């Protein structure tokens, strides 16, 4: 049932994937980078995510949709263990990534978060100069100062922000517009060269024009990164994702290729949700 249908939108991504993994000849149909197996997340006694199994494919955009409170953000925050901050949160099941279960107690979450970056709903740049926003983490990692200018420039270029702000890298990041701030947050995550980028409703606090810029950016970025995005905007999911997961009440109702799921949903609840019968 979980088949990736070739589609105009992801042909582009597909060819990029091949380019990056030339050595692998027999590519499986699901080229998953992250594999969720029977994942459950609890806050105390409340089970927020129920027994979810699904892949997150490499160099594709996977969207998580569903009504608010369905567990989609919780699920996303589990992937880089941001939920660890909540003392009563605990997990069942596995998320396999690169040969390890990242829910394992022995996982170094600090190292994990360098590889699995996250961008939040509300833009959250540090109240520091733009440049320092990007070098903040690099300095902590002990990177030599000589490399930093190049990384700052590259990551801002990747985030399609360089041209707008290259002359004022010393200004406070808070002087940027909301959309610019969000792209700066993406650039800040990209500077660490992560494998995965988790986006938690990245455009919900932005105006339509800024949202469109961030969407364009996400489509660009999937050439090089694996992206998981939570959104409550179904048009957005349809526009930018390759695969979509519909969650309801903590259950994974349906997962599949985005165009299939939106044009031909298998489950009644999926159809009701995407047709706007409830939200």
């Amino acid at each position, binding site marked *: 049932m979980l088949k990736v249908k070739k589609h105009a939108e992801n042909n582009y991504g597909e060819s990029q994937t091949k380019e*990056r*993994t030339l050595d692998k000849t027999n590519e499986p149909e699901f080229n998953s980078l992250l594999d969720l197996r029977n994942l459950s997340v609890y806050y105390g006694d409340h089970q927020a995510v129920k027994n979810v199994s699904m892949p997150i494919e490499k160099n594709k955009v996977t969207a998580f949709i569903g009504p608010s409170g369905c567990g989609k953000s919780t699920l996303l925050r589990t992937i880089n263990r941001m939920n660890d901050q909540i003392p009563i949160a605990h997990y069942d099941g596995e998320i396999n*990534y*690169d*040969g*390890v279960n*990242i829910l*394992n107690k*022995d*996982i*170094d979450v*600090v*190292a*994990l978060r360098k*590889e699995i970056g996250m961008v939040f709903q509300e833009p959250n740049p540090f109240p520091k100069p733009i440049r320092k926003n990007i070098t903040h983490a690099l300095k902590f990692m*002990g990177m030599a100062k000589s490399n930093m200018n190049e990384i700052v420039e590259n990551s801002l270029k990747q985030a399609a922000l360089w041209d707008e702000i290259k002359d004022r890298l010393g200004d406070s990041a808070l002087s940027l517009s909301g959309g610019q701030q969000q792209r700066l947050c993406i650039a800040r995550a990209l500077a660490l*060269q992560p*494998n995965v980028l988790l986006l938690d409703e990245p455009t919900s606090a932005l105006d339509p024009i800024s949202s469109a810029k961030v969407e364009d950016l996400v489509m660009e970025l999937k050439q090089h990164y694996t992206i998981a995005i939570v959104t409550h905007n179904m048009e957005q999911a349809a526009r930018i994702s390759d695969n979509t997961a519909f969650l309801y009440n903590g259950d994974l109702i349906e997962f599949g290729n985005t165009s299939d799921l939106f044009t031909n949903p298998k489950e009644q609840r999926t159809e009701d949700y995407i047709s706007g019968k409830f939200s």
Partner: protein
Amino acid sequence: MENAQKSETNNHRLLKKNGSSSKKNEKRGKALVYSSAAIVIIATLAITLFLGYKGIRTFFVFDVSVWNFLTTTDWDGTENSGAFSFIFGSFAVTFLAALVAAPLGIGSAIFMTEIAKKWGQKVLQPVIEILVGIPSVVYGLIGVTVIVPLLRDNVGGLGFSLLAGMIVVGVMILPTITSISADAIKAIPQDIKDASYGLGATRWQTIYKVIIPAALPSLMTAIVLGMARAFGEALAVQMVIGNVKGLPESITDQAATLTSIITLDMPHTTYGSVHNSLLWSLGLFLLIMSYVFIIIIRFVSSRRKV
């Protein structure tokens, strides 16, 4: 490319390693933070234990009777000394001061938050917060130079009296009570007040029926905090109360408090003497009272609604 390579060469890079620099960094931070927290506990324990030990010693080493100590008024520095007049003096000053400061403070807080909001918050609030920080010796000095002569001329007697203590300490805790009360009233959600005005209530009815009941636990907390400060105040009281060892017969009589007697007698007693030990028992009484005030505050603020 780089990412692909990383994932193939070292499968366990994501597992915790003991020598890693981030782990060391985290450990060092934790050590610092936990030891500071430990010092806070140690300081509290040390004060409680040392004062407890020194204060209780009086009753075991010198065979002073606890009952006698708490209920008699003859303070001569011997085993038969009683501290009741000081205990009475401390409570009298505390309650009298609260009697002055509570209505004035809460009334002013209501003025600042409900009647003249702009003026109250832009001018009065900062001024009051600054007045909270005026040192108590300064209040004592004003007591000596202004209040005591004023009482001497108008009320009679020496001027040094329970009444002077009440006025000085009352004025001293006034900014504290006002400032906390104002914060409490401000914390009441505006829509509760609007609902009352919307029903056609006057300002007084809103204050009396809505604001005061909603803020009552916090207002009580403000008063108790003020009283705790009054009870523990030493120098301002000592400077104006006259420090006469005996029960005052009226409010215009001289009196003494636990703190004023410690302040005065401590330098004149020899370490290890009965007299000295008795002073430590007074100190223990003050310590116990500050625990009692904390318990009262906890009880009162557990009923807080806003």
